[in-house]
């Protein structure tokens, strides 16, 4: 399929239109790395919509005749890379340190988790698996896991619980595969117990509508890096609005709250975790008990 050569004036014009659409719809900026793979990512969109080149695509977007085209372009440009138990040590810390602390401090037997920017759902399923494997500890608890992502395609896949053989091999222990997944043709599907535990919703991180109230554990990993610094501050403000004094925020390994506003500070007890400012500044390793 003939595509405009990257670097030409025409292609750069089209790229500006496409990156403008992505930013307007998601707040994400098209980094140099992602711009580089734009052509590859958009090939299926060109094919489905009967277009020949990236420039044809840009022109069609400007005509604004097909809202589905906008959606398909945005879905194609978003990075939906994810894997089960990505950064295994983070999940070990959640399981061994963070959740026991939350459980100890909670006044009511409700655990609320928000996986913000959940992509195709592996992070939320990983959390659900750990909680199910520790069912005795959580007996009598109401567990709510909200998982949101801007990509309709990613959320649809997450909600289906269907993952390829390659997906389930990346990070998922064979014992968990046998216990919590079922063969689904050539693929594997999370069983109904896991699927029922997670509320997958399409939502953005600016005027988010899916989250309600406060969450004990918030994960927003490898999401901020796609936003401008100003937008990162907005996202952290949103996360802070849905936090309480004992909440824990986890970001991606290369992400930080430092220099992104003052809503969160490094958590005094959990390495790599962040606490709402009120907690982090008041606390010197002392547990804070809050009424449920």
């Amino acid at each position, binding site marked *: 399929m003939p595509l405009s050569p990257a670097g030409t004036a025409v292609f750069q014009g089209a790229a500006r239109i496409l990156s403008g659409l992505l930013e307007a719809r998601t707040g994400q900026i098209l980094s140099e790395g992602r711009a580089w793979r734009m052509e590859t990512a958009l090939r299926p969109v060109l094919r489905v919509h009967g277009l020949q080149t990236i420039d044809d695509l840009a022109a069609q977007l400007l005509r604004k005749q097909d809202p589905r085209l906008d959606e398909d372009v945005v879905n194609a440009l978003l990075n939906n890379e994810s*894997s089960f*138990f990505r950064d*295994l040590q983070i999940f070990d810390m959640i399981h061994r340190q963070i959740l026991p602390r939350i459980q100890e401090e909670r006044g009511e037997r409700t655990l609320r988790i928000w996986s913000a920017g959940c992509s195709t759902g592996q992070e939320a399923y990983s959390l659900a698996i750990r909680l199910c494997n520790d069912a005795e500890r959580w007996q009598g608890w109401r567990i709510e896991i909200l998982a949101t992502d801007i990509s309709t395609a990613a959320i649809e896949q997450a909600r289906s619980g269907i993952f390829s*053989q*390659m997906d389930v*091999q*990346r*990070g998922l*222990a*064979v*014992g968990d*595969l*046998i216990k919590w997944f*079922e*063969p689904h043709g050539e693929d594997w599907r999370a069983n109904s117990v896991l699927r029922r535990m997670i509320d997958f919703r399409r939502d953005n991180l600016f005027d988010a509508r899916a989250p309600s109230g406060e969450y004990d554990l918030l994960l927003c990993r490898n999401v901020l890096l796609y936003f401008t610094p100003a937008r990162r501050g907005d996202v952290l403000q949103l996360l802070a609005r849905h936090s309480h004094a004992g909440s824990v925020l986890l970001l991606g390994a290369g992400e930080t709250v430092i220099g992104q506003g003052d809503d969160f500070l490094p958590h005094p007890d959990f390495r790599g975790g962040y606490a709402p400012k009120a907690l982090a500044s008041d606390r010197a390793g002392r547990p804070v008990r809050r009424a449920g």
Partner: protein
Amino acid sequence: MKNCLVVDDSKVIRKVARHILESLDLTVSEAVDGQDALTQCEASPPDVVLLDWNMPVMSGMEFLQALSSAKVAARPKIIFCTTENGISHIKAAVEAGADEYVMKPFDRETLESKLAIVGVI
């Protein structure tokens, strides 16, 4: 450095696995079937065995059974690595003592995550 014994009758698979494992800072030894692997484990047990299922002389499952009664100083972690991708095979391997299971084809990320799960890296 930790050592991985790659057991597969396919020279190509052994070569691909070696390339990936060495890039993960493991030393690699090779065996062409289960009997060869058992001999090597008795002489000097590796930290982990990447084990094919179907092989001449001694299969992966026969190797697992033989290993349980063999005089091995320290039992290595066992990761099955096979084209037998059905759930019945996976369950059978786990029941026989496999610590992990890799379905071919595999890539670097898959092997890396499985090695992390069994605690080798």
